[in-house]
């Protein structure tokens, strides 16, 4: 049925600039969204919502955030979790200390408060490059983690230092159930991703890639390097901040500073490596991969080799597998699952002509 798409020519640049040029793609998208809002909530179980879909959505958003910075603007960062932490704790405090503040505004403010932090730790990127920048982002990682552990005010002086989700209410509608949290998360993540997509296909996105590929040339054709880099840090940490708030409140429900540790940063980096640097779709693929693989592994093993492989060994196995995949992708497919997906589609277009493009 793929060759139905033949004969669809863009007759205007407007048409050509659509995210989904083909009506099949657009239809598929509409169906997908419809399903996400109707069938899934109707059929889904608590497990599906709170153990798979919500983390998947949140991690996808976080992936987008990091991808703008690393995949598009070429600034390597290991501090993603720190910016997420800022978002989470800021949201918590805004909602706590400004009673009556609408929930969504709380999330928005949380994201915004991550921006200055991102800028501060992004400043060194103007002078240093490549993995030297790791130092700056790692500094962020450790400092922020320490700060939130250290200053009890951030956790409303609770002796445990743990912050827990406020009531998720929008216009008197409660979202605290797994199903509700899922719908809420979905409705926050999707528009943000759309914005990100618009950015990367617009002038700013091209400037980012230009800076990534060769910043001297970028400067020569009049791209303001400083501004472009800092914008990358700002927007990236904004998205990460909101992702952090979602992580804390629609996914886990409660979180402590160490919940945003280096491992989370790594996870997000892996999402974009596996999913595909410089791709928006890739973040979803990568997130799905990183959420599902461990679950499938453990289920498969306990189902079929439950006796002779014990839970612990499985975890090690999975660690090894992850590592290998990272390396394999870096070697074989630096553009990640997204690229594979596109090649697949290209094949499908060509079908039945197997040697198309």
């Amino acid at each position: 049925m793929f060759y139905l798409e033949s004969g669809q020519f863009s007759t205007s640049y407007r048409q050509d600039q659509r995210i989904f040029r083909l009506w099949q793609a657009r239809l598929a998208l509409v169906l997908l969204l419809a399903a996400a809002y109707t069938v899934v909530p109707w059929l889904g179980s608590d497990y599906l919502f709170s153990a798979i879909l919500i983390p998947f959505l949140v991690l996808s958003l976080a992936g987008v955030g990091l991808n703008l910075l690393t995949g598009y603007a070429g600034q390597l960062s290991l501090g993603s979790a720190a910016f997420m932490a800022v978002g989470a704790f800021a949201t918590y405090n805004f909602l706590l200390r400004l009673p009556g503040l609408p929930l969504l505004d709380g999330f928005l403010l949380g994201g915004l408060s991550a921006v200055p932090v991102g800028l501060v730790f992004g400043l060194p990127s103007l002078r240093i490059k490549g993995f030297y920048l790791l130092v700056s982002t790692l500094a962020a990682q450790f400092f922020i983690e320490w700060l939130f552990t250290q200053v009890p005010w951030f956790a409303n002086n609770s002796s445990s230092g743990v912050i827990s989700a406020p009531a998720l209410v929008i216009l008197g509608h409660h979202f605290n159930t797994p199903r509700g949290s899922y719908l809420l998360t979905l409705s926050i993540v999707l528009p943000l991703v759309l914005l990100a997509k618009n950015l990367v296909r617009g002038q700013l996105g091209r400037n980012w890639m230009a800076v990534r590929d060769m910043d001297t040339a970028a400067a020569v054709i009049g791209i303001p390097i400083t501004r472009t880099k800092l914008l990358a840090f700002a927007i990236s940490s904004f998205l990460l901040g909101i992702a952090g708030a979602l992580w804390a409140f629609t996914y886990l429900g409660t979180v402590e500073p160490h919940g945003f540790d280096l491992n989370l940063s790594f996870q997000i980096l892996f999402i974009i490596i596996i999913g595909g640097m410089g791709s928006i779709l890739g973040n979803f693929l990568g997130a799905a991969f990183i959420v599902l693989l461990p679950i499938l592994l453990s289920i498969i093993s306990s189902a079929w080799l439950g006796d002779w492989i014990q839970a612990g060994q499985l975890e090690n196995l999975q660690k090894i597998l992850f590592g290998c995949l990272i390396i394999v992708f870096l070697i074989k497919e630096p553009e990640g699952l997204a690229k594979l997906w596109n090649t697949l589609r290209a094949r499908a277009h060509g079908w039945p002509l197997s040697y198309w493009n």
Partner: protein
Amino acid sequence: MTSIPRPLLRLEHISLSFKGVKAITDIGFEVAEGEICALIGPNGAGKSALLNVINGVYQPQQGQVSFDGEVRRHMQPHHAARRGIARTFQNIALFKGMSVLDNVLTGRTLKTHSSWIEQALRIGRAAAQETRQREYAEKVIEFLRIQPWRNTLVGQLPYGLQKRVELARALAAEPRLLLLDEPMAGMNQQEKHEMSQFILDTNREFGTTVVLIEHDIGVVMGLSHHVVVLDYGKKIADGSPDEVRCNPEVITAYLGTKH
């Protein structure tokens, strides 16, 4: 050559050195609006360095550059770009990870005035401008006949085409002054011919002033209205092709006899 009534570009007493090593010594010349000026000279004569001075990649220790009447000692690359100076590089400086179209579109960056917020929301000027940029980019792509590769990653294109794409990116900025660093290096006669055609057409159709570096004397003489000859960072001749051709110093420099 006598002073031009109203030069677009004037260099005066430019001297540049790296860690004490002199690259350019007291060079000055003028380029008239709308002319094609060629910089020639043996390797290491300081030609590329001079281009880098003109668009602010290097800061000269002495001398000043005046462009369109505006005099400045220190110019930042992006400022130069703003004033309408575009250039290509000796060893191609394209954005390898991006498609031909996107590369050309980056050339439009200074013509885009919508804020990133507008771009994100696709509101206000953003969408309309995006389309306008696209139209112009397509015009340039057509002009340089690289439509077939519109959506190819430049990294995958052959050398000759990459040179063309780089020219396209420069033209997309609608420059008043175009600096070309060996636009035909490593090309065969056929390609060189095409490239020269593009340069001439650019000069005629858009009235773009061109300063180019080229080794192939034949091409240079055919192409340019005005030739400046450098040797060991000094200017040894400056004039019309014919004047330069019979300049004894030039001959020695090129025949390489000691002096």
